[in-house]
């Protein structure tokens, strides 16, 4: 079945260090979305990437979609304790006229003050 893998599974960083999570698919992705889930919380939409090679920025967060549309990355510059949580990539896969979201395995980020 469709699999979207993320690495690393866990990452501990010191506050102020950078962090990157990678999302990889065995098939070409039509698009990629990124979500953040705080501990005990629910997934919250961050951004969607659609075009090959697309790069988008949100403050300290940089999102990139690979040229072949098989991978994506999320980079956080100078992490803060508020960045703690699990970051999921997801593909919005269309079939039967609607979308379903296939989530990656997630990267759990812990930021040490």
């Amino acid at each position: 079945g469709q699999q979207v893998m993320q690495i690393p599974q866990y990452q501990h960083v010191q506050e102020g260090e950078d962090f990157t999570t990678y999302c990889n698919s065995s098939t070409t992705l039509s698009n990629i979305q990124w979500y953040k889930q705080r501990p005990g919380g629910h997934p919250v939409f961050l951004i969607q990437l659609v075009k090959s090679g697309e790069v988008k920025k949100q403050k300290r967060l940089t999102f990139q979609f690979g040229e072949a549309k098989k991978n994506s990355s999320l980079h956080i510059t100078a992490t803060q304790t508020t960045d703690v949580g699990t970051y999921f990539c997801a593909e919005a896969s269309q079939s039967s006229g609607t979308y379903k979201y296939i989530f990656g395995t997630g990267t759990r980020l812990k930021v040490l003050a």
Partner: protein
Amino acid sequence: EPEVTQTPSHQVTQMGQEVILRCVPISNHLYFYWYRQILGQKVEFLVSFYNNEISEKSEIFDDQFSVERPDGSNFTLKIRSTKLEDSAMYFCASRSTEAFFGQGTRLTVV
């Protein structure tokens, strides 16, 4: 800001009992979803719902599961005879251009 509302926040049930998880999607959204997340694991797709019918379901969504939109606002997930392995956080989501998730219902089957 509009939000997806789920009730109850936590449900404990005996194995074999039926449970109904309730969701109120964002009012102008047309696409609805149920996901589940076993503790510490990824978010798994269960079912999508559009135009008052299921548009897609996963292998997890077997005959024990059903969904309903009984009154045009609520969107429910029913598990007929719960098993221990149904214990998980269940998230409802609704979508316009992006998906908004509810706070989730933590289901514990004992």
